[in-house]
């Protein structure tokens, strides 16, 4: 029985408690989110004019790394698109234009200056500095964004963090413990608190399973017992803004489903 609880959620982050699945499943989800979920990023750039102090290559690299909001439903991956062209069509490519000239004095070019042909695909933030221009310098280019996967290039990774840890379990033996506070002092995450003449455990989820508390305890055997539940996880995802976090989880499950279906189909075919 799989039990999931959303502990914390904002627009770009989510923290889940997952119970009842094994490591390999959670690890597969993590790997799918990092490497297989498509997202938009600038892939090709045609530079018409660049008199800025940055080289074309550096400028293009910066554009590539700029995270773009992704409209997964209306676009195809270039390799799966029916057009099959290297340049791409309206279903697998979005053009973004940048045309900035510093007319009066020095000016910074921001990601907000990029004009997208589709309002659903635009930079996540309008305030990303791309380059600075001195008066009369000019940048004029057309950038083509495509869907891609994180395993090909990190710019297509829809997450800036996706990690899990085992659910910590900390027990303090009341008979052995003399409240010397050694574990309170050594714990880097302030998991222990002294209340009266007893040590209490707070914020178990902050624990990083470093076991310093067990080493610090002068008692033998240690009065603090730190273990972890092998089938319970704390799963954290932080999106770059390309896709909403709940969409990332759903999408990763769909991809696994697709993989299993195609595996079954092909397995039944072979003799």
């Amino acid at each position, binding site marked *: *029985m*799989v*039990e*999931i*609880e*959303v502990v914390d*959620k904002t627009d770009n982050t989510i923290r*889940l408690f997952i119970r009842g*699945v*094994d490591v*390999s*499943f959670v*690890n*597969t989800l993590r*790997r*799918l989110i990092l*490497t*297989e979920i498509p997202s938009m990023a600038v892939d090709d750039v045609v530079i018409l004019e660049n008199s800025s102090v940055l080289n074309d290559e550096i400028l293009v690299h910066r554009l590539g790394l700029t995270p773009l909001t992704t409209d997964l439903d209306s676009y195809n991956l270039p390799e799966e698109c029916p057009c099959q062209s290297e340049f791409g069509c309206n279903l697998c490519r979005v053009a973004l234009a940048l045309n900035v000239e510093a007319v009066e004095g020095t000016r910074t070019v921001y990601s907000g200056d990029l004009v997208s042909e589709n309002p659903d695909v635009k930079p996540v933030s309008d305030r990303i500095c791309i380059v600075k221009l001195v008066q009369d310098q000019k940048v004029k280019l057309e950038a083509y964004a495509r869907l891609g996967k994180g395993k090909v290039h990190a710019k297509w990774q829809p997450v800036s963090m996706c990690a899990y840890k085992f659910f910590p379990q900390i027990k303090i033996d009341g008979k052995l413990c003399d409240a010397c506070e050694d574990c309170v002092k050594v714990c880097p995450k302030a998991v222990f608190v002294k209340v009266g003449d007893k040590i209490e455990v707070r914020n178990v989820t902050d624990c990083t399973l470093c076991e310093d508390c067990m080493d610090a305890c002068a008692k033998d055997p240690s009065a603090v017992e730190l273990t972890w539940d092998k089938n319970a996880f704390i799963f954290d995802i932080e999106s770059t803004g390309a896709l909403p976090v*709940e969409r990332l*989880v*759903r999408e990763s*499950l769909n991809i*696994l*489903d697709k*993989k*299993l*279906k*195609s*595996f*079954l189909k*092909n*397995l*039944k*075919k*072979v*003799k």
Partner: protein
Amino acid sequence: MEIKILKKTSNELKIEIEGEGHTFCNVLQKALLEDDAIEMAGYDIKHPLTSNPTVYVRTKGKRKPKAALIDAAKKMQKQNNEFKKSFERALKGWQRK
């Protein structure tokens, strides 16, 4: 996801899965090992960049390895669906909060 058979006997099966990696094979192996009729299950990726994984299954004799693979994949589908439902429920629970 093309599958090639490398070795096949009455209780052994070795297949190559094209275009996959640890992401898929690790859960598959885990699901296979939960089956009591299986003696051995494992996968190997010869080179992390250039090769496809080979999955090896050996049953204790009575069961066909291919049937065991199909069962394992079906079990994973079930778990996946359960996870999906559970996640949607958890999201609703959060929205209510």
